């Protein structure tokens, strides 16, 4: 834990004048290259330790032969990786009483900083952006493999084992890595900027959160070396006990990513509460920050349950505990409960950031204040709170608590009320607006379309009798792809087109962007709309064999999915070419947005604000003739103290 022992560094004025000595050459400084060496050494050490520990074990039926060395190998590899990246350097210095080097953001320049453990939240945001795009593309490639196999009703391309491996990798990659797809890049980058802060509360935790993601990614992928894991992204337990060593990779990676998510959420909560600029009242908080704040609570409260479940699963597989083995006094229901108690808030960890991005985009391009600001914030909080009370709807047919199904049906349907607020806010903002169809706005409109269909199909699923047919079928699959891919990923794309000029000073090509949008929108719907029908016609999830009469529809879906992949490829080409070669500069405020981050140069200077700004009005006062500027970026000395006195604490 990073304990702040030098409070003056939180002050705006203290920029160190001295940079003692020349920095070491890059290959001697901590970084990913040393991290890889650390991970390799760590894995070997852990594996040897595991061999030593488990050599006396009776190799009985409950475990595979070498789970203990593999899990310990992963654990030590992660520690080695973090050490090599430099996570523990400051901690070590503190422990032996050496002074901490001054982390001067202004001294961190050049491309090299993106490959270092850094304390600048903007650098971490960029790291997240590239990381998340990479993870997303990996998961997407697995999806292409799934759809290739489903071109034919029996197996023809990849065997059943490989098929399950691909399904599991796709699902887990998307669900666990993509939970940070907006919170990582945009939350870390713009959270502090939007609230007028120079920094986040816990920069070390934030950076640690990022540097855990490559480890989780590699460990999850390493399951492929063991032939994958057969359980899909849910990891249900009696099957997971049976599975081979790939299962260890699943549990370990998911737990590790869980820790990363918890750290990010913790940092976000403290930052939003404590680091708002003077005048940034709760009632002036941009909607994106509200969504980050709510999501952070979900992360901190729900994800530990997953970490616990993953840990217990690993114990079952390695040290012969029987938490989840029915015959030995455990319960497979327990795992289902723990997993979905995390799993349902997780769905909103994915969805809520999308609401936030879309709310920002809609206000800017409608040139109107956000309609019903309070109701938008209430909607996010309502969704966040209710999401803890619905998890049993994943288990309607399982035999757990069957008498409680009406209650969970009610809570599940109640959650559509706060979700509806998000639509009310969007629709009210569109009323008599001056709508600009920029690319972010197009993605926002597509978000509403997709999320509407996803949400309405969710109401079908909440009804227990109707769910009896729909549960576990392709209908569910279509439903959550509509909410997550159609909601979260479309919102992420809106965010990329909206904020990339701010993050890099470079804008993406407009023509390619529009082609990307239209292909993605059309082929997304053409891929996932037929899946509703396939599910209702009796096709279960995660099968590679289906009834022959469903082949035409499946082929249609597969071909659409390939086109959807092509659309993502257009995005990738646009991204790479625009960033590396075309480099079309976009400085200033191209969208004429009012929120705080756009009042800064692009990209923002290392310390964000030269002085802590004083926020004068809300971020959405578009069309108000005599609106105050959103903030005084250069308040005279002394104002801040007075402002603090006036606005200290919480006011709404």
């Amino acid at each position, binding site marked *: 834990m990073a304990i702040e022992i030098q409070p003056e560094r939180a002050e705006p004025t203290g920029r160190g004048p001295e940079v003692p000595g020349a920095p070491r050459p890059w290959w001697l400084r901590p970084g990913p290259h040393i991290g890889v060496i650390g991970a390799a050494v760590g894995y070997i050490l852990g594996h040897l330790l595991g061999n030593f520990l488990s050599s006396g074990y009776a190799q009985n039926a*409950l475990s595979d032969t070498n789970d203990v060395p593999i899990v310990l190998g992963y654990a030590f590899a992660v520690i080695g990786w973090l050490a090599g990246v430099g996570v523990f350097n400051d901690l070590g210095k503190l422990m032996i009483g050496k002074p901490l080097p001054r982390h001067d953001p202004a001294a961190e320049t050049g491309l090299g900083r993106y490959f270092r453990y850094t304390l600048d939240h903007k650098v971490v945001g960029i790291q997240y952006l590239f990381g998340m795009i990479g993870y997303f593309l990996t998961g997407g490639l697995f999806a292409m493999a799934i759809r290739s196999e489903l071109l034919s009703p029996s197996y023809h391309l990849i065997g059943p084992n490989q098929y399950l491996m691909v399904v599991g990798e796709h699902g887990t990659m998307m669900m666990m890595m993509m939970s940070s797809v907006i919170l990582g890049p945009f939350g870390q980058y713009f959270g502090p900027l939007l609230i007028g802060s120079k920094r986040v509360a816990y920069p070390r935790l934030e950076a640690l959160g990022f540097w855990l993601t490559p480890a989780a990614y590699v460990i999850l992928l390493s399951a492929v070396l063991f032939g994958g894991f057969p359980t899909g992204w849910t990891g249900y337990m009696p099957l997971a006990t049976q599975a081979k060593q790939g299962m260890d990779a699943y549990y370990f990676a998911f737990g590790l990513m869980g820790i990363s998510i918890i750290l990010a959420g913790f940092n976000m909560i403290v930052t939003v509460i404590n680091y708002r600029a003077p005048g940034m009242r709760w009632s002036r908080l941009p909607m994106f920050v509200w969504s980050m704040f709510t999501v952070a609570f979900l992360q901190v409260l729900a994800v530990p349950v997953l970490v616990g479940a993953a840990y217990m699963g690993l114990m079952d597989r390695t040290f012969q505990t029987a938490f989840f083995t029915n015959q030995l006094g455990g319960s497979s229901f327990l795992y289902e409960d723990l997993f979905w108690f995390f799993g349902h808030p997780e769905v909103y960890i994915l969805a809520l950031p999308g609401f936030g991005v879309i709310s920002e985009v809609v206000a800017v391009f409608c040139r109107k204040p956000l309609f019903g600001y309070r109701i938008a914030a209430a909607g996010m909080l309502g969704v966040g709170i209710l999401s803890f009370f619905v998890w049993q709807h994943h288990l309607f*047919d399982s035999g757990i608590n069957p008498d409680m199904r*009406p209650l969970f049906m009610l809570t599940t349907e109640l959650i559509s009320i706060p979700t509806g607020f998000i639509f009310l806010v969007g629709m009210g903002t569109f009323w008599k607006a001056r709508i600009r169809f920029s690319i972010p706005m197009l993605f926002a409109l597509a978000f509403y379309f997709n999320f509407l269909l996803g949400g309405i199909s969710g109401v079908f699923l909440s009804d227990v009798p109707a769910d009896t*047919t729909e549960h576990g079928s392709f209908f569910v699959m279509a439903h959550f792809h509509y909410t997550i891919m159609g909601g979260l990923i479309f919102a992420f794309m809106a965010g990329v087109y909206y904020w990339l000029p701010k993050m890099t000073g470079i804008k993406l090509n407009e023509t390619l962007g529009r082609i990307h949008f239209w292909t993605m929108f059309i082929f997304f719907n053409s891929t996932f709309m037929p899946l509703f029908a396939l599910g209702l016609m009796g096709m279960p999830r995660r099968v590679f064999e289906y009834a022959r009469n469903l082949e035409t529809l499946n082929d249609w879906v597969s071909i659409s999915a390939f086109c959807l992949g092509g659309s993502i490829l257009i995005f990738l080409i646009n991204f790479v070419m625009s960033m590396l070669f075309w480099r079309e500069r976009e400085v200033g405020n191209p969208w004429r947005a009012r929120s705080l981050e756009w009042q800064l140069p692009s990209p923002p200077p290392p310390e964000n604000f030269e002085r802590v700004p004083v926020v004068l009005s809300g971020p959405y006062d578009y069309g108000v003739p005599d609106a105050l500027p959103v903030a005084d970026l250069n308040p005279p000395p002394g104002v801040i103290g007075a402002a603090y006195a006036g606005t200290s604490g919480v006011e709404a």
Partner: protein
Amino acid sequence: MTTTETPATGAPAEPRHGLRMFLIWIVLSLAADLVIWFVWYPHMPPGDMSDAARHQQFDIAVMAVSGAPVVIAVLLYFVYAIVVWRARPGDDSDGPPIYGNTKVQATWIIGTTAIVLWLFVFGTVELVVPAGAGAGEGPSPIWKLAGVQSTSWTPASNDMLQVQVIGQEWTWTYRYPQFGGMESTALYLPVDTPVTFHVTSLDVIHSFWAYQLGVKADANPQVDNVAYVTPKSLGSVTVRCNELCGIWHGAMFNYGHVVSQSAFQSWASGVQSKEQGDGVLAALPPYALTYDPTVIPQLGKNLVTIDGITGAAGYYYPPSNPVTP
């Protein structure tokens, strides 16, 4: 519909957007609901082969009829907004600063709450009245199907037929306790008879999905999961596994048949006497609600015990590929 109750128009010259949208919405929703109810509903899955399936079909249709106006309202609103309120080229102005409208917001909240409460009441009635509507109800269901509990089953009585569904990697087996506990790999059911399924598993979690009957119940090891159904018409039924259970999950399906009561009687007694004759019944473990596959009663001992712990979790059914389907 709540969504069209938009802020009152300001300038008198403005067209009455709310009224326009409302009229278009009424026409479109009415058309959509009529099409859904009269054209689509009779063909909606899962069909009407059993009482549970009929209730599910009815539920899906009712929710489609309730949901379609909402979808149409929202989409219509966005399309209308895009067409009418798009910024014309060269227009750099801002929109009117409307921060909210208490009446609209209150209407919206009341409207969505009313819809949600209606769906909740409807869903609960539809769950309780048809005795769980085919869903798995755990070991001790509180919403039971009417029928006479009896140790034997005869046609033309109202005897409840007991069928045990046993899932294992990767096949379904059915046991009929009222016919001496005989075992079959094909599911036969008599028409117009209340049926109790006792769903359980020998190894991992499966899910018993008799699609046309509208029955879905997870098969958990060491758990008896009960589901009720009354088949209403003759025909065949697809049974699939609906919970990922290992590599041949996709191949874990077979077929069931709903036959007349007398045909069922003769089939079941026939299988029973055949299995009695060739010794299968004697070799089977006695009928129970759950089974521990590590115990082989005929051997009179547990298969493998290490350090006093009986190995479990399906290991003794080592994964082996059934014939490639």
